[in-house]
């Protein structure tokens, strides 16, 4: 196809400002169009590249949409049983204290099936990073209700909307684990706009920097979209997320340097 507004004279290595990092494997991602997972994967790999710790990093992939994360990230990865990533990461970090360890989990994995593992790993104050992608739905299995589903939100297992009287309240696991003394840095970010992506990258960078200090868990929640599960276009789902998810899951740091952040 002929490109009408192309500038071949600009396409030289010295003019390059942004390209996908080589730590992302050169293969198509298995995610739906517009899914936030791809951005978080790339930001994570950029942080590892900038810190030059890719060869010393071990990731633990969850069960869920990101179960194939080991195919896309060119680092050492280990698969864990559903929800058990923090337990596996604990073992890795204790055996190799000088390695950087992270778990990458969705909301069904971290906040439903793996609640016990998550809370106890955070309470023990292990020195690894938990990356938590919250889209309020079980995306991979077909959009079922998750603990983080918003009140009134329609999913395939709550077709009339989540009824709080029967199905309970959305679980704010990030606020919950911020109360534990074992966590050192707890933050909530998103990836729908360029500025949000930059903030997420900064948070990930900080989380990995803190592993050197051995002060406890660094926990980064990323509020993401699930346009297939929410039955919207990617751009619509980002707007819906800003309007509906952010009031329930407000963005920003929740715990910095072991101290809870008070919001005015």
């Amino acid at each position, binding site marked *: 196809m002929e490109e009408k507004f192309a500038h071949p004279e*600009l396409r030289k290595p010295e003019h390059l400002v*942004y390209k996908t990092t080589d730590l992302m494997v050169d293969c198509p991602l298995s995610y739906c169009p517009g899914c936030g997972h*791809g951005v978080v994967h790339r930001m994570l790999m950029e942080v590892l590249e900038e810190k030059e710790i890719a060869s010393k990093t071990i990731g633990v992939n969850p069960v869920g949409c990101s179960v194939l994360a080991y195919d896309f990230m060119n680092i050492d990865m280990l698969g864990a049983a559903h929800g058990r990533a923090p337990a596996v990461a604990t073992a890795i970090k204790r055996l190799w204290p000088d390695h950087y360890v992270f778990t990458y989990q969705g909301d069904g994995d971290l906040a439903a099936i793996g609640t016990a593992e998550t809370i106890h790993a955070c309470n023990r104050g292990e020195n690894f990073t938990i990356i938590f992608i919250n889209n309020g739905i079980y995306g991979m299995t077909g959009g079922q209700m998750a603990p983080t589903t918003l009140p009134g939100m329609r999913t395939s297992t709550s077709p009339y909307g989540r009824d709080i009287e029967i199905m309970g309240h959305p679980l704010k696991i990030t606020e919950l684990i911020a109360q534990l003394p074992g966590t050192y840095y707890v933050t909530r970010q998103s990836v729908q706009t360029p500025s949000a992506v930059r903030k997420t990258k900064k948070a990930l960078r900080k989380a990995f920097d803190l592993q050197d200090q051995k002060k406890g868990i660094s926990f980064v929640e990323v509020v993401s979209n699930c346009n297939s599960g929410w039955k919207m276009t*990617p*751009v619509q789902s*980002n707007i819906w997320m800003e309007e509906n998810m952010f009031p329930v899951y407000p963005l920003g740091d929740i715990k910095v340097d072991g101290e809870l952040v008070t919001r005015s």
Partner: protein
Amino acid sequence: MAKIKGDIVVNIERCKGCEVCIAACPFTCIAMSEEVNSKGYHFAIKVNDECTGCSNCALVCPDGVITVYRAKVTAE
């Protein structure tokens, strides 16, 4: 007068046509193509010369298909 000029290269076969880059571009430089790639997705194309190489589109692209170039050029 020197002017900042940018250019983007889209990996057409990897683009899934999610249109997130269109919403992120401050100069509406990007639109979806009429044609489709081998997977059947409309892909992102550059539709004007306003691009400054800010790399917003590349940052939000979930599939990382956009490569951004930027240079100072002297206007004729």
